[in-house]
């Protein structure tokens, strides 16, 4: 925990884009907190990963972060906008890709992007140009005009990602974004995430695929049983601890289990 405070102080000079402070969430009357005093900060130009075992609290954190779930304690801010008090402005700053390929599947791909463009109030010309740009990365081709219900799993994921990127969000939040994608699109998305962060944005994503997290993340938060147990930069893993992120993560989880 000391390390988290230390890193936060080091990063204070940087522009804070997203911050989660003392977030606690309990489902119903459950005695266990699904998220227990979580503190996360995301800065400009950063790719942040959220790691944890199944049921660790990653999804709960993301659901609270995106305004889908209400929470008992804490504060979530995107730039200066509070997700509870100024929800609309806060939500304008981010794009969210869920892990369950949720899209309006009775729309065509283009109609879905049209819907998203109007949700984020993007002028028509800019939105059409944005579609062309995104097509270069995600390559839906002519199928963008077909009904989404006819899409494969991977294609649904692609249109979901394109929808979230329509307004070129300051913060991109992705929940298991690589599941179901073909190698070419995985490569393309990986590059896009890096490029998006380089362009002055922040990318925040959760994944079980530690290899990908290691390849594209600058910093990683590790969640275990609802608690934030560590924050580590990918480079420090290699340089300071001389181990891969996977080894570091497994060691950290084992240590937490041992402490209990």
């Amino acid at each position, binding site marked *: 925990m000391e390390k988290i405070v230390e890193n936060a102080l080091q990063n204070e000079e940087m522009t804070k884009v997203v911050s989660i402070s003392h977030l606690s969430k309990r489902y119903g009357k459950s005695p266990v907190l699904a998220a227990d005093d979580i503190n996360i900060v995301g800065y400009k130009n950063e790719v942040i990963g959220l790691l944890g075992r199944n049921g660790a609290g990653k999804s709960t954190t993301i659901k609270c972060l995106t305004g889908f779930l209400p929470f008992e304690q804490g504060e979530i801010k995107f730039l200066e906008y509070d997700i509870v008090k100024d929800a609309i402005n806060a939500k304008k700053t981010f794009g*969210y890709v869920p892990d369950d390929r949720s899209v309006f599947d009775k729309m065509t791909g283009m109609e879905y992007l049209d819907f998203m463009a109007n949700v984020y109030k993007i002028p028509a010309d800019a939105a059409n140009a944005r579609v062309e740009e995104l097509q270069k990365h995600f390559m839906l081709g002519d199928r963008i005009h077909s009904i989404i219900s006819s899409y494969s799993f991977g294609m649904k994921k692609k249109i979901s990602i394109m929808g979230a990127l329509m307004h070129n969000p300051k913060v991109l939040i992705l929940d298991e974004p690589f599941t179901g994608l073909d190698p070419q699109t995985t490569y393309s998305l990986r590059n896009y995430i890096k490029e998006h962060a380089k362009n002055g944005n922040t990318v925040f994503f959760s994944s079980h695929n530690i290899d990908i997290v290691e390849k594209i993340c600058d910093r990683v938060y590790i969640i275990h049983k609802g608690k934030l147990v560590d924050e580590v930069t990918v480079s420090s893993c290699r340089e300071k601890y001389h181990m891969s992120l996977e080894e570091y993560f497994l060691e950290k989880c084992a240590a937490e289990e041992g402490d209990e």
Partner: protein
Amino acid sequence: MSDYLLLLKKDIKSMFSIKGRFNKKTDYLGIFISVFLTLAIVAVVVLVYREFLLTYTEIKEYGKWEPLLRLKEIMTVTYTVIIIINVFAGIRKINREILAGSDIVVLVRLPIKPESIFLSKLTTLFISQVLITAVTLIPLTVTVGIVMNGTDLVDTMFWIRSILMVIILPMVSLLMAAALSMATYHIVNFLKSHFVLTAIIIIVLLGAGFVVYSEILGTVGDMLVGEVRDQFFSQGTMKFFNLMYRILYPANLCARFILGDKPWLMLLLILLIAGAALALAFFIVIKILNKVMKAGMEGRGRNTFTKRTKIKHRSGLLNLIKKEFIMVLRTPNYTFQFLATAVTMPVMVFCLIVNFSGFVTNLIGGLANIDFELTITIIMMLSVLTNTFCASNISREGSMFTMEKTMPISYKQIVFSKIIFCSTVSVASILISCIIACVTGYVNVLQALLIFVITAVISVSEIMFATRKDLNKPRFADNEENEIKESTPTISFVIMLGVLVSGLISGVLLILGILKDESFQKLATKAGINVALVQPISIAFIAVVVVLITGVSVIYLLKGLSKRFYNTVN
């Protein structure tokens, strides 16, 4: 054979299993409504059938009394109707459970012979057809037995033959269903990608179906009223029934069999036809299934709908309303439940007014003109029932309900877009219905205006109430299509409440309407009612009820809406 028996056991178990069907999510009210309606329909059909039997068997043609021939004619038509019902049910089941069933896709990966899968599925279908036939045929056969009791026709053999018919008829209908299912499958696949055409077909079929239904209803009404009865059983009607008896095979053979006319010969003929039919049905379905499954595995038969569009700017609310429209138009189930019903409502209103106006007037002895009260009752009832679709306004969003919460759209915009969409369709439908009632002279302009205002306000109130009720406890679909296919407790509750409220308003108005008529004034005075006060009381009653309903609905919708919206977990 062992595979076949194993699969059959699995299918039968899931068909009759009670375990897991009744839980917290079970729509008990919906089950109650379905059972109640089924029993009510059976009761009405039996009553009308009994009346028809009594009258028809008494008729003398060219001075000759031939009750046995009359009975054969009636039974032929009865069996034909049941076969038709079974054929439609069979086509639906073959398409849903065999041709498009997800079960098959899983089973073909297992080391089981395809024939075993097909045979077990078809046997299950056959059993379900036997059950449908039992529900429809037994009450009618019992009615025949009761009406003809004491004659030579009704003996022990009659009842044994009746039970046999329950098994024989599905054999015939299953063949027809199997033969037609391939064509239906191709039509359904074609229509999958043609939403507007599908909507038009649904609207036309629904409208035509309702016209036929109201005609039958009118005929039944006429038949029950003594004076019109003689006109109904004219020479033409008799000739029609006789012709049906002569040409409708094998229903006429079944009629002869059950009525003991050369029963053994008839049974032999029927069994030959039914056996061949059943074997052919199995053969056809196996052939069809091989083709369909091959097409499915190759990705054919998928929805190929394509539309080239460019992004256009529109307001936030309009964007959401457009989304609602697309969702409803491109889901045939929703098109049928809401759009088609709303579009055909004016036709339904017209048919019902035409048929009921005369019938009700006759019923109360032709003394009072209650066209206004009847029109408001019909329009209110139909719009209230159409709007029950809105009780799934939130549930229909499925997993996208989560996504919408993460978008920069206010919860009010999301909820109100749904209410505005449903209200626009509903109010337009009510307006056209009122115009039709006015143009056809059943109500005057002022009355039409009054009906429009009352029903529109009640309709919008119902939509608000139903939407909030659904938000409180949404039932998101758990199928791949994200589609609500079954009734939910909220839908059943809104149906019950809608019928109760509109029934109460209509009931009171109908009574007051009868009392305001001169012919009933004496009766009213005798009962201590001041006739001069009836009209103002009617208007005051309507005003109070409408204001009350609107007030309650608005408060119910808005109270804690934000908290509920963000607390509803998908």
